[in-house]
């Protein structure tokens, strides 16, 4: 087993892979992996293009109370990039301008650490938008965040929370010592407020969905099977409930890329993704209906492209201030070798497996 990275961000370590261009060059340099765009073309379906916008995913900042080893954002307590209220207002104007966007998906970092987080949620809910918070669970027990669970319930926010294993050792190995126990405690807080009860036959609309992502250089197992295993184990051992489990493949970006390289797994992992390429995943890829907004307002096709600084292609608005409804209709999607992560096996998205 490779030596664990100290709980510091790549930026703080001044690691070469803190730079997006170094990351792109590193994954592009893995031999034996066909360029992704060529692999898509070879399926005969043509290049990836957008459909209608359905989801605005905002990364409100890289500040986080955790420093998970696989984080593709390189988030952590030392990061200071957080979205300003002025940029959030531009996002809200874009929501007003584009009625097909029904969901605001808020991610980070720990999104809740952005000082304007709650105002953004309220503003989006007031517009009738479905709001998703990508939550690390431990923030619910962090100093200064009491009342967060009540706020989520009051605003009917859907929680999508990372829990990579139902076993404490594997969760803590990825996310930090003690994270598993704190996560279970946070799930209890949410359950007490009515979250995660749909599996018991109740029809509440307070959704608590969990995310499984592999705790190493391997692909996720079958989503339905893992969900059944999670439900049984979490209920029997910990007395907590959730709605759905999403399996998400780790993409070779930022700290997960650093792990792959340091542990000697990069080439094999890329070849695994390449070998598992499944054309049936292409139509459901989230980049086809998602607009990704960076903390500084820049626009991308997805959060992964955002971290690799792979800007939207062609004559499209590059910043949320310039957003116009219809501008992204049928636009080409920027891709790279990391895209093999979303097209491997059953596929992967922020909403779990695609097939």
């Amino acid at each position: 087993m490779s030596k664990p990275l100290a709980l510091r961000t790549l930026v703080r370590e001044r690691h070469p892979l803190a730079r997006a261009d170094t990351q792109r060059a590193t994954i592009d340099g893995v031999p034996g992996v066909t360029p992704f765009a060529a692999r898509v073309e070879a399926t005969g379906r043509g290049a990836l293009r957008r459909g209608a916008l359905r989801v605005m995913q905002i990364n409100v900042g890289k500040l986080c109370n955790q420093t998970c080893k696989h984080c593709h954002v390189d988030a952590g307590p030392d990061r200071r990039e957080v979205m300003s209220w002025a940029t959030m207002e531009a996002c809200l104007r874009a929501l007003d301008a584009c009625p097909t966007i029904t969901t605001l998906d808020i991610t980070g970092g720990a999104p809740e650490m952005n000082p304007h987080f709650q105002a953004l949620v309220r503003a989006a809910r007031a517009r009738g938008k479905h709001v998703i918070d990508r939550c690390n669970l431990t923030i619910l027990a962090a100093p200064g965040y009491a009342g967060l669970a009540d706020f989520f319930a009051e605003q009917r926010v859907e929680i999508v929370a990372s829990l990579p294993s139902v076993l404490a050792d594997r969760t803590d190995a990825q996310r930090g010592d003690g994270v598993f126990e704190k996560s279970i405690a946070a799930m209890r807080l949410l359950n007490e407020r009515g979250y995660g009860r749909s599996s018991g036959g109740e029809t509440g609309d307070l959704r608590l969905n969990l995310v499984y992502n592999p705790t190493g250089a391997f692909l996720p197992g079958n989503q339905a099977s893992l969900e059944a295993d999670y439900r049984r184990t979490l209920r029997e051992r910990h007395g907590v409930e959730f709605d759905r489990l999403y399996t998400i493949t780790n993409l070779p970006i930022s700290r997960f890329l650093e792990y792959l390289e340091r542990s000697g797994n990069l080439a094999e992992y890329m070849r695994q993704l390449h070998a598992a390429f499944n054309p049936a995943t292409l139509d459901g890829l989230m980049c086809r209906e998602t607009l990704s907004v960076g903390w500084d307002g820049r626009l991308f096709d997805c959060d992964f492209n955002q971290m690799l600084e792979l800007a939207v292609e062609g004559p499209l608005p590059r910043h949320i201030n310039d957003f116009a409804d219809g501008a992204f209709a049928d636009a080409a999607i920027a891709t790279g070798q990391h895209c093999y992560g979303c097209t491997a096996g059953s596929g992967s998205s922020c909403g779990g497996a695609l097939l």
Partner: protein
Amino acid sequence: MSNYYESSDLAKFGEIGKAAPELGRKFFEYYNAVFAEGALSEREKALIALAVAHAVQCPYCIDAYTRASLEKGSNLEQMTEAVHVSAAIRGGAALVHGVQMRTLAEKISM
């Protein structure tokens, strides 16, 4: 053939059906059905396969079911216990034959 075992051969497992496609198809259809979620979960089946892989000492199977066990959510403690189940059965199988040895030895001894 420089080595009897090549790790890259694991990915070629499916090619075994080339010379006898119908038998290959039947085998893989059965194989996939065996490992599907049933009365036992996929994770439990992967742990059983991991234990059997050690009993039959198949390096391909150990590779495949170490990965499968991790993918399906097992940890190293559970996987090590599975290997001990294998070791206990193999060791126990040798030892229980000691009864046969004792029976014969006693029969032919004065």
